[in-house]
């Protein structure tokens, strides 16, 4: 039985390892679609997808939009600026109004944790979480895993350290769930003020020093230091952060293994990561961006694909390539 994803993709916490592998494996052939002279297949022709972004985003929104367009879906972008939109009723109102115009899927980014599930429970359209508060950002973690798998060949048994502002990071949470389900060992490293207290409960190791993390890891996923949070006094200064926790070329070169370096972007060069590392041979950062489109195509394709009860009925009539 081929696993299905169900109606929505809200996060990786509740997916099975088989479902995660299905998405990664499905992304493989979609990489090639983006290399074609005509970068478009008719798979989602006639589907309408709304990208509902209540929070600023460049990379994720553009990546979803490319994925949708390369599958021939019709797309509408709705950018509702965070300050004017209240959580709760108005989110549902917006979505229900969109649904009344007969849409098929919603990609939602929202500053409140749980917003994607809230929406998914209330509308019939498929909902994809494009990042909700400090909760999850599943497609980012999936493209991170795909990029690791491309470089190393596998995820099982790898040691992956997530570095930096783990406390505020939905990317970190999705990565921790996804990677541990696929058999990787996960650690986090950062200043105490940016590491959540009970993080060990997720089965991760905590390093207080970046040197120890680099000594241990095969892969570093370097998170963006969310400079807008600087005012809250989580770290003393940017300069000190770089000196103590920055992923510098000197530190990377001292690693006992050939490190793989990821960063979800946008990068603060010279804050959490050294430019020479970001642009160097260990970095797969641009490859992550390329993979983002393929992973999102895979998710859209899998969520759009048929209802399970019809699939049961269609089974068996599809043998021998004779459809």
């Amino acid at each position, binding site marked *: 039985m081929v696993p299905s994803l169900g109606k929505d993709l809200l996060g990786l916490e509740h997916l099975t390892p088989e479902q995660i592998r*299905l998405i990664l494996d499905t992304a*493989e052939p979609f990489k090639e679609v983006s290399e074609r002279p005509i970068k478009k297949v*008719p798979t989602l022709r006639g589907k309408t997808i709304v990208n509902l972004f209540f929070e600023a985003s460049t990379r994720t929104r553009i990546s979803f939009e490319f994925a949708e367009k390369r599958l021939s879906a019709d797309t509408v972008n709705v950018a509702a600026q965070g300050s004017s939109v209240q959580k709760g009723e108005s989110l549902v109102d917006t979505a229900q109004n969109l649904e009344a115009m007969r849409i098929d899927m919603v990609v939602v980014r929202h500053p409140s944790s749980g917003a994607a599930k809230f929406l998914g429970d209330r509308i019939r359209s498929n909902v994809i979480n494009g990042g909700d508060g400090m909760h999850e950002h599943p497609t980012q973690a999936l493209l991170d895993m795909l990029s690791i798998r491309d470089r190393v060949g596998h995820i099982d048994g790898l040691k992956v350290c997530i570095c930096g502002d783990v406390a505020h990071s939905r990317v970190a949470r999705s990565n921790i769930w996804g990677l541990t389900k696929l058999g990787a060992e996960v650690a986090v490293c950062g200043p105490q003020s940016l590491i959540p207290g009970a993080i060990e409960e997720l089965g991760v190791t905590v390093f207080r020093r970046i040197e120890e993390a680099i000594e241990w890891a095969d892969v570093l996923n370097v998170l963006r230091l969310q400079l807008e949070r600087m005012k809250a006094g989580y770290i003393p200064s940017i300069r000190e952060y770089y000196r103590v926790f920055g992923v510098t070329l000197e530190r990377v070169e001292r690693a006992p293994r050939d490190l793989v370096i990821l960063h979800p972007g946008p990068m603060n060069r010279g804050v959490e990561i050294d430019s020479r590392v970001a642009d160097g041979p260990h970095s797969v950062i641009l490859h992550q961006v390329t993979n983002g489109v393929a992973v999102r195509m895979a998710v859209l394709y*899998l969520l759009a*694909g*048929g*209802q*399970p009860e019809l699939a049961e009925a269609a089974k068996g009539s599809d*043998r021998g390539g004779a459809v």
Partner: protein
Amino acid sequence: MNPSYNETVLDTGAVADVLKRMAREIVEFAGGTDELVLVGIQRRGSDLAERLSRLIADQAGAQVPLGVMDITLYRDDLQTVGPRPVVGETRLPQQLDHKWVMIVDDVLYTGRTIRAAMDQLADFGRPARIGLAVLVDRGGRELPIQADIVGAHVDVPTGERVDVLVTELDGRDAVELVDGGKT
């Protein structure tokens, strides 16, 4: 309830003979091998295309470009057939313009796979001519599509299924009638 049974239509030796004949006919059809390109449809069609390319190399002494194509993304029934199997690889030769492209598949049935394959080819280039070679034509067309080269015509009674087995995937070559009870 009838017990399930298999009836052999072509055994291993017969499949080998049929493929040799098909290889000759493909070269005749394309007027030589200069502009010929073989494109197999995943999965068994791509195995058959590879065999045919080796046979053409033996018979005509020419290595013809070989491609594979997964037509899943061009199907017209995505709504009803999910959850989807993983999509296979598509890898086509760089240049299809002005070529004689021979699509290779195992079974020709409704014609919908071939419709999808032609749509996909059109997004990669503009061949001078597209042909179709199938190991088995089992009838039952739902679209006005026909094969140019056919290994065997098989009359499939209602409630039965024709299976093409290839060594690469199934451990042996054969064409069998199977009492599917569900087709």
